[in-house]
């Protein structure tokens, strides 16, 4: 233990080293470390946020997909209903048309038949008149005998 002037020298050196360290060494290093720590913390927070956003977006997409599926199903359902309705309508319409056509046909047939019958009756009447004329060998006064002829025609 021989304390001497070295002590003073070392004390000065110590003070100078500490001051230098305090001014020029410590601040840049600790600032760099803290800035990087902040950067990393921010990055981690951002990645957390992104993860949450992703989960949210996935949920949203799933919901939308579900909705779209439901909508599609509804549209298909509606289309089927409409199809059925249209077919039904078409069948109805067709049936009505058929009925209509049939009715017209029948009416025409009826008319034709009536006309033919009328014609036939007239011809038969004429034939009957002609026959009767032949039989009677004389002409019948059509005007005078028209009532009889009419009656005959009616009976035919």
């Amino acid at each position, binding site marked *: 233990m*021989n304390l001497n*002037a*070295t002590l003073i020298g*070392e*004390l000065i050196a110590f003070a100078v080293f*500490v001051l*230098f360290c*305090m001014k020029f060494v410590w601040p840049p*290093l600790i600032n*760099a470390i803290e800035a990087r720590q902040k950067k990393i913390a921010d990055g981690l927070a951002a990645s957390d946020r992104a993860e949450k956003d992703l989960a949210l977006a996935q949920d949203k997409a799933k919901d939308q997909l579900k909705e779209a599926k439901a909508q599609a199903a509804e549209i298909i359902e509606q289309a089927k209903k409409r199809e059925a309705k249209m077919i039904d309508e078409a069948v109805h319409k067709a049936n009505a048309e058929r009925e209509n056509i049939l009715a017209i046909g029948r009416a025409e047939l009826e008319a034709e038949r009536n006309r033919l019958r009328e014609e036939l009756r007239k011809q038969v009447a004429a034939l009957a008149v002609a026959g009767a004329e032949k039989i009677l060998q004389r002409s019948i006064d059509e005007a005078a005998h028209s009532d009889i002829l009419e009656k005959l025609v009616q009976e035919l």
Partner: protein
Amino acid sequence: MAAGEELTLSSHIQHHLTNAKMCTVDGSVAFNKACSEAGFWTWHVDTLAWSIGLGLLFLWIFRSAAKKATTGVPGKFQCFIEMVVEMVATNVKDTYHGKSKLIAPLALTIFVWVFLMNLMDLIPVDFLPAFAGWVGATGFGMDSHDVYMKIVPTTDVNLTAALAIGVFILMIGYSIRIKGVLGFIKELTLHPFSSKSVPLQIILIPANLILETIALVAKPFSLALRLFGNLYAGEMIFILIGAIGLAQLPLHFIWAAFHILVIVLQAFVFMMLTIVYLSMASSDNH
């Protein structure tokens, strides 16, 4: 070692444990044995040179890392330096709760500087002294046995005492800055024995003052002597091992391996205690 001179173990050890001295005798510079009468104004040039050299090495290494410090991806060198800085910063943050721009760089300086000085202990004990002796003998025509070279500055009590005194000055400075002069005096006189009655308290003041002063002064003493004692003893054992011939090799290896622990631990302890003492000095609740 000079030829013809009897080399005893004790003189060998003595030679290893003597600092290179410098002083002024009658107005001119004198060295070593001529300085035996110089008293206080003797300079241990080896201690000064090695410690200041290592301090500058510390500052140069850390300054070059600080200049290149990036907040992006750090290189390996920066990573290593930042590891040390962060270790110190964490310890300071955990122990010292006030706000101070000084404590952390102080702790870093103490830790790295003391570590580097302790590290000199791992250089085989004869290398540098023998080299210095050879330089002294061939370059300056000195007797190589008169060339002293103690390369571990922490085995010089002047250095450890200087560190401890520096810390002690800071302790008192912090005490006064945080608590005021009156608060500091109160701390020295009104604890640990306190009484509500004023006359009794006045009687207790001397006892308190003695106890608290001893407690205060014991701190720098323990700081200085712990580091000095550990390193001096370690150095002594290295010298003894170095003196026993070839058998030293395994022994030296074992002791050096163990000493790696000691040098880091002592540097860490010095740093930690500095932080603790300064934290105690700046905390108000006694």
